[in-house]
């Protein structure tokens, strides 16, 4: 099957009737508040990490310096007073607690491991010959910071400090940050929510105005006197909605008046012709008067088609008056209605209708759309020909025939107003049927095109999104 060809109307953008514009669940203001909270939490987490790490490093440096100073003092004592003096001082210092709440722990051993003195029971995993230091746990379970050092070939000294208070200070800092984080989140949420609600209320007034305009209701002027961007947007929106409504009203009044001013005198003219018919004797030739009356109806039909086209084009994107229509049922009814006429003309009318194809639309307009295409096909397809009507999900409506087809030069223009095809004996046309079909399709978010076929014509109607990019290129 060849690719459908290119006719689409470049003036009208894609629009799906019935699509809901409002998205209450995804308010930009909620997103902003959520974003601000996440940002504040991340910033606080980074700040807390840096400060806590620095705090711990500082505690470690302080412990290390204290231990080192203690060792230096003990080494001096050992150098000046010997082992005896050292043992005395160790005993004195063992009961000292510093201002920071750190307790002092010592152990003096011979290199072979023989215990000499101190308040530590077992030598930890620290090398005295390398003067190693670090955090560790003593045999009794006390966590300490310690350094081991060899103060003489036959004496190893271990000096340690407990750091419970440092840990408590660290946890206090952690708790302070957590508290600050909770306070910031709550404050941001409250402030953000209040601000967001106010902004949303102001935006909602504008959105409500557009919604009312879209559903055809009267729009009251939007009241937002704030001297800021939203105030300006509100004022501009009021003007735009007002102008659109005024244009729609003018268009409607204009159409009504044109119809009225043309139909009324034609009605009088028609009545005069009826009077003339009555005044003639029954056996008189009335064909000229009848022809005149037919022409009056033809002018009225042309006027109606033009106004219908204008009305449909003017209502593209307008959701008022649309309802759920069962296209499958509608098409089946039309096939039944037209089957007799096709049979009488010696034409086969075949239908391929997928059940339950629905669309939001105006039923009568959709009936007219398909009728116009069937009328068009019946006009041009000769006796013995075939017309096919198909309706599929999408919705995709196709009316094809194996008649004479449309001349290549006429194909891009076939949906224009007043564009008639080949003359058919005994059948007149204003060339508005396909223009109206196009306008009705657009009104329903659909586009009509002419597909390539080997023989005859194939009209395809489907949603804008289903037309390929190459198809829409023209």
């Amino acid at each position, binding site marked *: 099957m060849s690719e459908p060809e290119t006719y689409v109307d470049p003036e009208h953008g894609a629009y799906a009737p019935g699509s809901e514009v409002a998205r209450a669940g995804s308010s930009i203001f909620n997103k902003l508040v959520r974003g601000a909270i996440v940002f504040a939490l991340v910033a606080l987490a980074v700040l807390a990490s840096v400060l806590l790490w620095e705090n711990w490093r500082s505690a470690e440096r302080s412990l290390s310096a204290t231990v080192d100073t203690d060792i230096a003092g003990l080494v001096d004592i050992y150098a000046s007073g010997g082992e005896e003096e050292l043992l005395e001082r160790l005993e004195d210092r063992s009961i000292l607690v510093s201002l920071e709440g750190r307790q002092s722990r010592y152990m003096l051993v011979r290199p072979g491991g023989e215990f000499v003195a101190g308040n530590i029971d077992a030598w930890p995993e620290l090398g005295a010959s390398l003067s190693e230091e670090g955090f560790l746990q003593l045999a009794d379970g006390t966590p300490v910071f310690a350094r081991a050092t060899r103060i003489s070939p036959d004496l190893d000294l271990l000096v340690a400090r407990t750091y419970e208070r440092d840990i408590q200070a660290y946890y206090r800092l952690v708790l302070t940050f957590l508290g600050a984080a909770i306070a910031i989140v709550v404050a941001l949420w409250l402030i953000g929510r209040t601000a967001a609600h106010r902004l949303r209320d102001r935006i909602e007034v504008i959105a409500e105005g557009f919604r009312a305009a879209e559903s055809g209701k009267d729009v009251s002027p939007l009241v937002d006197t704030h001297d800021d961007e939203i105030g300006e947007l509100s004022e501009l929106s009021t003007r735009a909605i007002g102008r659109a409504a005024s244009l729609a009203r003018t268009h409607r009044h204009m159409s*009504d008046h044109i*119809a*009225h001013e*043309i*139909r*009324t005198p*034609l*009605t*009088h*003219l*028609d*009545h005069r012709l*009826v009077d003339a018919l009555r005044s003639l004797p029954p056996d008189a030739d009335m064909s000229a008067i009848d022809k005149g009356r037919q022409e*009056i*109806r033809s002018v*009225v039909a042309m006027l*109606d088609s033009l*106004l*219908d086209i204008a*009305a449909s084009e003017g209502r593209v994107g307008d959701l008022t008056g649309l309802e759920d229509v069962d296209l499958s049922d509608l098409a089946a*009814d039309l096939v*039944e*209605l*037209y089957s*007799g*006429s096709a049979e*009488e003309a010696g034409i086969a009318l075949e239908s391929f209708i997928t059940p339950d194809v629905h669309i939001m639309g105006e039923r*009568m*307009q959709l*009936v*007219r759309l398909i*009728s*116009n295409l*069937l*009328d068009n096909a*019946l*006009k041009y397809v000769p006796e013995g020909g075939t017309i096919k009507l198909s309706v599929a999900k999408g919705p995709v409506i196709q009316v094809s025939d194996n008649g004479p087809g449309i001349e290549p030069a006429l194909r891009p223009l076939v949906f224009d107003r007043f564009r008639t095809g080949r003359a058919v004996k005994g059948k007149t046309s204003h060339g508005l*049927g396909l223009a109206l079909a196009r306008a009705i399709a657009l009104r329903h978010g659909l586009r009509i095109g002419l597909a390539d076929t080997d023989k005859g014509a194939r009209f395809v109607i489907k949603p804008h999104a289903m037309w390929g990019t190459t198809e829409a290129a023209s």
Partner: protein
Amino acid sequence: MKLLYIEDNADAAADLTSLLAREGHQVVWEIQGADGLRRAALEPFDTIILDRMLPDMDGLQIVERLRESGVDAPVLMLSALGRSSNRVEGLEAGVDDYLGKPYEPDELLARLKALVRRAEGRTHSAIIIYGQFECHVKARTAFRRNVHIPLSPKEFELFRYFMENAGEVVTRDMLLRDVWKMNFDPQTNVVDVNIGRLRRKLENGFDRPALETIWGSGYRLTRGE
């Protein structure tokens, strides 16, 4: 039949009044919508014919006010706004029938009669009998002189419509509107062809015609005798 006609155009009013007078109907003509409303509240009418574009009021507004004030006479709107969408608006506003100008005099007369018949409630019988024809509405079956005539569902709808309007002219527009629910006239002769099929079924095996074509306006079911 006594009719109220609300129309601001004197020529149009004169044409219609003389047409209805010739048919033996009495017409009361009002120019203003407000006067028409007052008149409708004071006197009973069989039918109200209403223009849509009146100088003081919109015809659709008048229908609303008539219904609010309890006037239940059928209303036929006769308007220069005769497009398919205009008719839908009119029918949605509560108008019983809607005819665009210019109109066929016979079409107008046929519709008025149909409106009055409908208002009188003559259309709700379970079995409608007219001449040789019988229409069993619930069983959806048709008989002529007690011979069952097999009809398709749509043909039965058509037959039933003729039976409900037995002896009166039924126009193509009325058939399109009431049987096929279409308020525009297709370019193809679909109505005539469908009537032709029904006619063949109703006349098959009988000497006398069942449906007669009323030139220029529509069809009429005969008594078949």
